[in-house]
């Protein structure tokens, strides 16, 4: 187990390095630089700026400097666009916001999705099943950018219950709409995976044996069927976790939460190299960690899997 974790961590380092190199090259290949604006700068001014941010050095040198600053000082450099802030500060400010609504989304989607999925499977072919199936199919195909304006229309403009955007230090009233909007399709996905996997388990021999022994239905489901049926859901949860805590770009942009998603998009559009790189590395690290976590949970749920 420990060896497995260590081995995975060792692989993570070259993976991250490759990620840095590839994104660095992609960014340099994109036309323009962080300081191209509508108003062309005189070349003396541009030269000063390039020197100030080390962009006048050869590109291999820039890449080496960048990597060594991260490794030696854990310094992701200054933002080229937000000149009073470092990339670390931008992440430190945006990530907690995204993490907060992301975790809520994760909890809501998982709990609600599993519950609906189990219910539909147990009451297969009843009105409960059809209703939940109908709703989840509907919810799954409606994208966030459609759900979010609908929620604002209903809860902000018609009912006047919740603010249409902003974060307000994470006040509950500002958190609800982003969480609901982001959970919408995730609940549906989890429920559908849960339902089909539950049906499969319920049809297996050992469940039939348990039934024959006269074990009550709820006990069969909770004690015998739920754990094995969760396996496919767990596979889905890891990428979902990474997806929700790295933030939906749409949620951050639409609700102006100040989360990391909008910082990421803006940095790419502004050619704010350092910020875009910093957030890419964060996303990469989280993805690697998320995958490791899933493997560990797998082993815990299914003792047949050995690490």
């Amino acid at each position: 187990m420990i060896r497995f974790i260590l081995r995975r961590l060792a692989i993570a380092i070259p993976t991250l390095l490759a990620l840095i190199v590839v994104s660095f090259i992609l960014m340099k290949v994109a036309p323009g630089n962080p300081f191209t604006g509508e108003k062309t700068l005189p070349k003396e001014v541009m030269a000063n700026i390039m020197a100030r941010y080390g962009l006048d050095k050869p590109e291999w040198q820039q890449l080496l400097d960048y990597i060594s600053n991260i490794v030696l000082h854990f310094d992701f450099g200054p933002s080229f666009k937000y000149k009073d802030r470092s990339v670390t500060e931008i992440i430190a400010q945006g990530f907690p916001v995204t993490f907060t609504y992301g975790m809520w989304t994760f909890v809501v989607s998982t709990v609600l999705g599993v519950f609906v999925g189990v219910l539909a499977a147990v009451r297969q072919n009843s009105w409960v099943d059809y209703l939940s199936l109908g709703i989840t199919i509907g919810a799954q195909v409606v994208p966030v950018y459609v759900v979010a304006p609908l929620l604002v229309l209903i809860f902000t403009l018609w009912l006047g219950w919740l603010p249409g955007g902003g974060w307000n230090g994470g006040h509950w009233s500002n958190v609800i709409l982003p969480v609901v909007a982001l959970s919408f399709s995730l609940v549906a996905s989890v429920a559908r995976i849960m339902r089909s996997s539950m049906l499969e388990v319920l049809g297996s021999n050992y469940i039939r044996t348990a039934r024959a022994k006269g074990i009550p239905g709820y006990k069969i489901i909770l004690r015998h069927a739920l754990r094995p049926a969760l396996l496919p859901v767990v596979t889905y949860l890891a990428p979902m976790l990474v997806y929700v805590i790295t933030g939906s770009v749409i949620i951050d942009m639409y609700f102006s939460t100040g989360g990391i998603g909008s910082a990421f998009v803006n940095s790419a559009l502004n050619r704010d190299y350092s910020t875009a790189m910093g957030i890419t590395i964060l996303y990469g690290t989280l993805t690697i960690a998320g995958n490791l976590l899933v493997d560990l949970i797998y082993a815990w749920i299914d003792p047949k899997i050995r690490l």
Partner: protein
Amino acid sequence: MTDPLRAAIRGLFCASALCAVLTAPVLAAEVPAGTKLADEQTFSTSVGAAIGAFDPQLAEDTDQSAVINNLFEGLYSEDDKGNLVPALSDGYTLSDDRTVYTFKIKAANWSNGDPVTAQDFVFAWRRAVDPALASNYAYFLGLAGILNADDIVAGQKKPEELGVRAIDDKTLEVTLSSPRPYFPMTLTQTTLFPVPQNVVEAFGKDWLKPENIVGNGAYVLKSNSPGEVVVLVRNPRYRDDAKTVINEVRFVTITDEAQEVARYLSGEVDHVGVPTGQLPKFKAEYPNEVTVAPRLCTYYFDVNVGAKASNKALTDQRVREALYLAIDRDVLINNVLQGGQIPAYFLTPAATAGFTTPDVPALNMTQAERNERAKALLAEAGYGPDNPLKFEYIYNTGEGHKKIAVVVAQMYKETLGVEMTIRDMEWATLLDTRHQQNFEVSRSAWCGDYNEASTFLSLVDTKSTQNSSGYSNAEIDKLLADSATKDDPTADYTRIEQILATDLPIIPVYHYTSNALMKTNVKGWPYDNVEGKWYAKDLYKIAE
């Protein structure tokens, strides 16, 4: 001639005598007697993205400037009509050769209680040109004419050699390299605002953090949550605080246009832009809240006519004139843009201070006549049904720009049989392509840096870095050089526009307007300020 330029020129005639520069200024919220003010005096406005550093010398966009205009104050500011009004300046004297300005500075304090001194200006201006700070706006001091500014930026002189010095705590002397009638107007730009030397030196770049920042404006920074909201609160140490009414100013980031409207209607913000193309709808639904005001901006097509021009057809003046005439600007504005824009037949917006609009022929023709003339010109140049003119038009990705491209292509096709292919690219890519002059015709736009025609006309100066069409005209270059030192360059500007309307290296399309929704209880907003400069200290909210 409107006021800032006249004001500046009037300033010149006061040479060598300390004199008040202007007429009675608007300096604070002017609340008519008997007005019942609202209990809550918070003003919130929307901005499109997270706002950059609130550093006067580093500011490079309008959102940053709007925040800084409320946190800091320079020698001059603008009133609701764009007239220059003294802020920290207590008047100035001008040397006989009109190159040395000596300003008296009013008694005022920083928000930490320290007095604002002439030395704070000297420090700030040297900082602006210092290669170590590497500000995008470093060039602005050279533009303003301040002695040695360009050499310092180029690293050939030291920041200490800049033409500015503190004679004593309250007297600032500025030396220009040559007379610049527009110099006082540049003083409303944040680049030339003072900053507190001891605070900047003590905290480095962290001096802008809410817990450290010290300003001299009507407001201080309370909190900054980038991408969400920036909150300013009243500065009790502001020199004119007694006349301020608004207690809190909020700059709310809202990226999505529909979301802007939703949050406006729900009362979360007082002031937002009207979504593109929806002005008629909002005018009908909220007639008292919609505002339309001219802006100092022009939308135009850049035609590559320089040495790098790949499509030689476009280097033929007749072809360009045909393309200029065949755009039905009224259709474009009334049916496509629907934002009350003003048709442009020349570059400089008519609303620009001190600008006399040229009498270009296209203005006196009907569209049918323009189309006929365009057809004739194109035929003369050798293009017709058998040999159709073909070129490519590039623009930055965006719904509005796309509509314009499609409609203009259609107009060209129908009227002239011209085949204009259109291609969109991402903003940064477009800028790069244009700077490399690797295009045939490109979408372009310009907003004035200050309220005077030279900010537009210098775009076609041969040596201008902005001149991406590759156009060069010796007469225009000379007129521009001469006008920089003239008391009244109006005639020169009009002449340049006439040359441009013939040569047409750029094809003006329309002049911008700014369309906004403003809550009816907000009063004092400077709708007639074409640069869109506003100061929250001039606003107030009435009880409804």
